[in-house]
């Protein structure tokens, strides 16, 4: 390290103008795309232009594909928005996966158990309330222990994911259709009871609209509301917060309940809005991806639109590549990983300045 110390000089930067930091991030993404192309080339032997064309085709190749892309974008963005207030508070919640799933479970429960007992509109409202409450509970528990006894929230939320998964697995077997199938299938396929209404003739439009509203709400909530200010102060320093008369424990619990409830809402949208079923993998790792989407956007809801778009397009494109060239579906995880590594790494060059030390003056 000493040799390196004398070769490179690393210093913390003053604030970098925004356009420069964006340029650095842009370069990182470009580099990452090049590496992704090279990796794909090695695996498929295809030329890079074709590869990118395939990615684009996979994401926006047809109207249907575009809709799916935008629906995926909406879901990922929605979950990212949900985890953001907690992260701004430096509450490392990696339990979005479980919070969404428990929302799905609550929705499914209402749809299955109450389908023939309530009128459709009431059923949807009950489902909504149940999903919000379930997600909120999943957010409340880790927050309560964190606030009271400073229990490590990262591991707590992680365990809550698996508890949610096993609960879902339990109920899937209880409700399985047909008996012995080990899965539920489409819920209320005939009656469509509890299904969210289709807006504008497009199955996915409702989800997209809800998330759009959510984005604006979250942006305003974080930047202009008193709650948002409290969250920012608590995240920076809990001592400063209590000094300023902010009730830290209450803010932690309240913010996580909000986070969890929004996750629950996303669960409702998944189960009652688009998928109309419940599986243990319905969230599909998006609870974890959301953490990275949110972090890459520096917790800014508007920038999150772009970071989640990047990941979604890449994921959809990668699965197009895998089906076109006969690769495994997990290929998209690898590409996502590469992009993430480059973006994570590029932060260093935004925070620090690296310059070559003049070798002539090495000794001192």
């Amino acid at each position, binding site marked *: 390290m000493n040799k390196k110390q004398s070769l490179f000089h690393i210093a913390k930067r003053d604030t970098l103008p925004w356009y420069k930091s964006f340029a650095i991030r842009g370069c990182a993404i470009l580099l990452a795309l090049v590496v992704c192309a090279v990796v794909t080339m090695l695996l498929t032997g295809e030329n890079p232009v074709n590869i990118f064309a395939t990615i684009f085709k996979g994401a926006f190749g047809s109207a249907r594909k575009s809709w799916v892309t935008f629906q995926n974008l909406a879901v990922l963005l929605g979950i990212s928005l949900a985890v953001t207030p907690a992260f701004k508070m430096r509450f490392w919640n990696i339990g979005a996966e479980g919070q969404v799933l428990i929302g799905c479970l609550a929705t499914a429960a209402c749809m299955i158990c109450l389908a023939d007992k309530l009128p459709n509109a009431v059923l949807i409202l009950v489902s909504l309330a149940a999903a919000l409450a379930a997600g909120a509970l999943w957010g409340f528990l880790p927050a309560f222990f964190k606030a009271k006894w400073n229990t490590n929230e990262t591991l707590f939320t*992680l365990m809550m994911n*698996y508890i949610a998964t096993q609960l879902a697995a339990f109920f899937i077997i209880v409700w399985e259709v047909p008996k012995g199938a080990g899965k539920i299938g489409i819920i209320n396929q005939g009656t469509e009871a509890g299904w969210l209404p289709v807006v504008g003739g497009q199955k996915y439009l409702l989800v997209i609209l809800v998330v759009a509203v959510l984005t604006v709400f979250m942006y305003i909530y974080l930047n202009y509301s008193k709650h948002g200010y409290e969250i920012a102060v608590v995240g920076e320093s809990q001592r400063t917060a209590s000094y300023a008369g902010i009730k830290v424990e209450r803010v932690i619990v309240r913010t996580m309940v909000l986070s969890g409830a929004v996750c629950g809402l996303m669960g409702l949208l998944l189960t009652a809005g688009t998928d109309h079923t419940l599986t243990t993998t319905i969230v599909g*790792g998006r609870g974890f991806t959301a953490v990275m989407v949110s972090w890459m956007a520096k917790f800014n809801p508007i920038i999150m639109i772009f970071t989640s778009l990047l990941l979604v397009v890449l994921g959809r494109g990668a699965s197009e590549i895998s089906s076109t060239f006969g690769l495994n579906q997990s290929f998209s995880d690898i590409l996502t990983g590469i992009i993430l590594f480059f973006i994570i790494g590029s932060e260093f060059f935004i925070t620090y300045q690296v310059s070559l030390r003049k070798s002539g003056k090495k000794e001192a």
Partner: protein
Amino acid sequence: MFFDFASFLPRAVMQGIPLLYGSTGEILTEKSGNLNLGIPGIMYVGGICGVVGAFFYEQAVPAAEMNGILAIGIPMVCSLLGSLLMGLLYCLLTVTLRANQNVTGLAMTTFGVGIGNFFGGSLIKLTGSEVPSIALSTTSAYFSKSLPFAAKCGWFGQIFLSYGFLAYLAILLALLASYFLKHTRPGLHLRAVGESASTADAAGINVTKYKYLATCIGSMIAGLGGLYYVMDYASGVWSNNAFGDRGWLAIALVIFTIWRPNVSVLASILFGGFYILYLYIPTGTNLAIKELYKMLPYVVTLAVLIIVSLRKKREDQPPASLGLSFFREER
């Protein structure tokens, strides 16, 4: 209701060994102040690299001519190399480039699981097999070979002697790691790095070197957990996502044992037991209840997590600078 302990315990041990590898690796890593949430991904990579190595060796050499040392050595070296690369990647990002450890770790897990499933899936396609898995039974036979006289020793043999060598290696490594941390100078230095990097730096300890070494060696140990899982526990059968969430459980174990690898030997077996308890509790035809029993390890971890946070003993707390990156000229 008869509880078959003699068959339960060995299975609990076999379930526990991957966790033990994972937690030993993660303890070493965390003692250097790095919270590596990429361990689940690293264990996947460790597993698949071993599988790839074994696969090509099995393809190249007919089963009868296979050399025991190569059959074990090639997958092991491949597995170690794979997880070493992952460890290096993590260090490059978090130590040299000082990136956020949580985010890096999660990205590593996505990436590692992706690598595992991608190459696993590709190999499966290569073999053109009907079922979505690859069986490397010849290699596995070498890995899971137990002591020849184990079968003759009755219940004693079944409980203590029936495992492949990687299981004993896991226990040995955990005990060694424990001794290393407590009684050797590099161990003392490593703990200092994790407690307070700037103090260690002022004492002339090369913080970067220790972080790199601890994290990379930790990754390699964790990777062996993946290898053990495929080669011994699963009898050489790789199927995608089969390894499941064991990596996360290994991280939970670190907290469960309060950063002590020697405690982890028993704790991992306990966790392994929880993991398979549902198979041993008669539930009749009600399959759903089994799913609830599977929840047990997570609930227990939660309980421990809460209890540890209630006790405020200084020695039981995580390394003080866990999760922080170190920059010497910070003002």
